């Protein structure tokens, strides 16, 4: 009979081994993508799995033959603008939701809003934006991204604010600050971790968006990364090496951000990461 301790150890090893299954499922595509991005064409299209040599040619081509940097820059600008607007509005809203009582249930309304197919939204939004001359602008797209994330951001920040006792606001007001002053000078500094996490989430959402960017942006110079790269992947003869290189480069910022905010994500906020279309 195996001892209890040995049984425990076997269980642990079994767990790790079984987890290798989903892990391979997740990791393999990334590994293959990275490997392919460094494989010269003749190896990519041969019978070999592992290339004989590694090359940076695809990356070079990416920068020489496409507007990758421009698209990268566009994505960054849009994401930054979207994050700024969304944060500003959601901080105010979150504070209001946290410190005051309101009659309606914000969560239910929000869930309802998210049942709406984005496709349904995109059609009229395009028409409206066209009239407002917001199509093909950074601001237009950023507003679109921003609005999509607003309800979530407001709720998440409200939850973070709830963790900061109201007695601090009250103490500040007794000391002579206005409510706004209390918000800016007292509550905000204490909520910085939560705000940072939310900012990353909003940024990620904007960065990853395809549909809005695809619809609202017309000119090539204004394209964001997902759109630009998607365009590259249309057609009959595809430059797979270059596409893999593009994929790698798009993934890296998200990897960096993820490492930055991972603890928060892994501690599992219910609506921590949101927004797919």
């Amino acid at each position: 009979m195996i001892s209890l301790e040995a049984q425990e150890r076997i269980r642990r090893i079994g767990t790790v081994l079984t987890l290798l299954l989903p892990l391979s499922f997740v990791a393999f595509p990334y590994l293959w993508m990275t490997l392919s991005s460094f494989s010269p064409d003749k190896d990519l299209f041969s019978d070999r799995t592992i290339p004989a040599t590694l090359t940076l040619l695809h990356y070079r081509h990416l920068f020489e033959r496409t507007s990758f940097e421009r698209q990268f820059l566009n994505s960054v600008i849009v994401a930054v603008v979207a994050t700024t607007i969304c944060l500003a509005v959601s901080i105010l809203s979150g504070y209001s939701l946290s410190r005051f009582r309101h009659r309606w249930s914000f969560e239910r309304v929000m869930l309802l809003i998210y049942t709406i197919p984005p496709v349904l939204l995109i059609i009229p939004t395009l028409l409206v934006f066209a009239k407002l001359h917001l199509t093909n602008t950074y601001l237009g797209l950023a507003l679109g991204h921003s609005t999509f994330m607003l309800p979530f951001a407001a709720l998440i920040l409200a939850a973070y604010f709830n963790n900061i006792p109201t007695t601090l606001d009250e103490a500040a007001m007794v000391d002579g600050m206005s409510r706004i002053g209390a918000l800016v000078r007292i509550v905000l500094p204490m909520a910085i971790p939560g705000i940072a996490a939310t900012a990353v989430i909003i940024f990620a959402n904007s960065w990853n968006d395809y549909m809005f960017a695809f619809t609202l942006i017309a000119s090539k110079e204004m394209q964001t990364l997902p759109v630009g790269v998607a365009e590259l992947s249309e057609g009959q003869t595809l430059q797979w090496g270059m596409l893999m290189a593009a994929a790698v480069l798009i993934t890296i910022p998200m990897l960096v951000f993820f490492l930055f905010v991972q603890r928060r994500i892994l501690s599992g906020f219910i609506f921590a990461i949101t927004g797919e279309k």
Partner: protein
Amino acid sequence: MDLSFERKEQLFSYTLLIPLFIMIAGLAVFPIVYALVLSFTDRGLFSTSTNFIGLANYLKLGYSQEFWQSLLNNIIYAVSCVAFQITTGLATAMLLVRKFRGNYYFRAMLTFPYLVPTIVAVLVFKWMLNDVFGIVNRMLLAAGLLDAGVGWFDMKRAMFSVVLVSVWRFFPFAIMLFVPALEAIPQEYYEAARVDGASAIQQFFHITLPQIKEVLFVVIVLRGIWMFNMFDVIWLLTGGGPVGKTEILPILAYLQAFQGYSVGLGSATATAGLVVLVILLSLFYRMRGRK
């Protein structure tokens, strides 16, 4: 004007919410209403004339084979995706809540597909499932499981591939929600069950499942909604093809509006999709006995 303290506070709280209201009203509520209105018109994409044509668009859809096929595809797609995302997500989460070295890294790595743009997922799988050069076919051939390369995006398998990519892309969401729910179950319940004599499977059905019922419900609903309304994955992967095999309602609506130039019709399709979704959701809620 000297308002009471309470009134002042109330005003202030609403003032803070004004930007939120403006943005949502302007960029969410208004467009939805506008879309609904559009569905009753014959507005074209570039035209300036908007004529009210009543239910004509909807009638057109009712008679359209393509519409019903898309609706069916949509339901198949959504249900398959949710089923697989949840089973893999839950199974993985249950493994992740155990104690072992490197647990943290596993959790981090398994969250990954959720964080990366859909375009990346699509590109990678398009490449891996490429019928001639894709690594999947090559490995299957080498292992002797296939005689010839399989067309993963052909008529028979396109839906499968689309579901595969969708599951890969989004199942970490389920993991992220199930892990804290599983961790919240007090160990004592499992200990009492062990003393009572329950096997691992019995423990799952008598303790684990009842305890995560609420989270399970939320996950099913959320994923159901988001997969039903999914656009990006299918559009980028197959564009709805081949021959509409993977065309779901959001795709159809988009095509109608921006390639068929009929904004009215597209809006009608999208609205119809929304109505179907709401109906399915309320049926699901009723099954659970809630409101």
